[in-house]
């Protein structure tokens, strides 16, 4: 069901852990739904640009949740925060050679958690927050605090075997 790349990132996650004194912290997901991701970033300024110098994740979730967390940190590391906030669920799932349909929401969570970390960093520094980062932040907060986000495929087939 999973690509080899997913299995690799799940089995040997990159950048697992939590940064001490992070510049930004992002949370996404909800334990009620079974997936929670926490991303911490360190930001470095260079030539007037904010680069993600280091990034780590902690995740409770399925194999896809862990693999997408790992992948999003790989994709984000070294990017400017401007570029990093453009990472989409599709970028993440593509980098993992695809995800099963029912697991696509995991790549969303990973993108959300990264965005939250960037949002946190920017608001702490009083930087001007782009409109869509703001609106994604509101959405993520709602899902994280609510009893759970709605899954796209709540009605997906349930194979029961036992």
């Amino acid at each position, binding site marked *: 069901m999973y690509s080899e790349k997913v299995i690799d990132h799940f089995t040997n996650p990159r950048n697992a852990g939590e940064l001490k004194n992070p510049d930004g912290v992002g949370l996404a997901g909800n334990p009620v739904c079974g997936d929670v991701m926490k991303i911490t970033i360190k930001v470095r300024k260079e030539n007037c640009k904010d680069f993600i110098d280091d990034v780590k994740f902690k995740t409770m979730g*399925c194999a896809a949740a862990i693999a997408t967390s790992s992948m999003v940190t790989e994709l984000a590391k070294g990017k400017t925060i401007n570029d990093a906030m453009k990472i989409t669920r599709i970028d993440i799932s593509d980098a993992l050679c695809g995800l099963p349909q029912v697991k696509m929401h995991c790549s969303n969570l990973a993108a959300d958690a990264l965005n939250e970390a960037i949002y946190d960093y920017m608001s702490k520094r009083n930087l001007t927050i782009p409109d869509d980062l703001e609106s994604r932040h509101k959405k993520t907060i709602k899902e994280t605090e609510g009893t759970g986000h709605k899954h796209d495929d709540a009605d997906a087939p349930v194979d029961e075997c036992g």
Partner: protein
Amino acid sequence: MEKIYLDNAATTPVAREVLDAMMPYFSEKYGNASSIHSFGTEAKEALEDAREKIANKLNANPYEIVFTSGGTESNNLALKGAALSNRKKGNHIITTKIEHGSVLKPCKWLEKLGFDVSYLDVDEYGLVDPENFENSIRDETIMVSVIHGNNEIGTIQDIDEIGKIAREKEIYFHIDACQSFTKTGINVETQNLDMVTINSHKIYGPKGIGALYIREGVKVDPLIHGGGHERKLRAGTENIPGIVGFAKAAEITTPGDVEKMRELRDYLIKRIINEIPNSNLIGHPQKRLCNNANFTFKFIEGESMLMLLDQAGICVSTGSACSSHALKPSHVLLATGIPPEDAHGSLRLSPGKYNTLEEMDYTVVNLKKIVGRLRELSPFK
């Protein structure tokens, strides 16, 4: 190291004796049981012999056994068949919140046709309260359907009590005994059972075959129409090798097998609960299937445990074997009152008669490591 299969509640390997019994019916005694020549007669005899063996296991009359393609079909036949055939009596059905999909989905289907279904609550151990059942009975109640041994949490219901009430109130009593058949006694007479769903692939028999016990006189509409097979209740050329294998599997079960599974189960439970912090046993501590050990591990999620165990050569499932294909935590775990965040961290280990204590040791050692590793990754603690 050989792989360790701890998912015997999902399905089992076919036992050697069973396969041996089936073999002649593929390419030698291959007749159609409805044919009247010698090949047909031979097949018919095998069919009726199997029917008798299955009936014996339930203390039933062979005539009351209808072969089907499996547990799912038997449950569909019982639920829809009895409901549609007894519409004149009423439109109310009682079942529980912890049924298998093959009972729940037919109930949903019947609701669309105008039937009213009551889903009984269960307590924290997954037990139905017979008094609660009794109070839910109405004049229009046709039947009650209860999962005997639960496939996820292993809890065995008190069907004696429920059967007494159902008989007294004159409503049909159906049990889904896919998990309990051969693992705990079932007696259609003393337990007042009107319909019993059983299948083969959970008891070391082949897949694709099951049966429904239907007490003589109980009115059931067929689901599959055609030739007059199975006293007109289930048409289709009989799957003789499958039926022979099913009967053999039922025949060879011994109390020793059950004892062995129970030992493995108890060993697993004891070590896991003692050695892994924040682990909880789900289901009833005593009234439980001999092959079911189900836990929640806090702060982590079931599928990732399952996959790391699989990488270590250990095959288990999370709650219902494949609930990870869905995103919602299992309806059974939720019905016992487990919070959803914990339900996601469930793992079912289901030992079988071919497992060994050494395998349990290897499993516990690896599970400990894996739980530790995933908790390292988890933002909670």
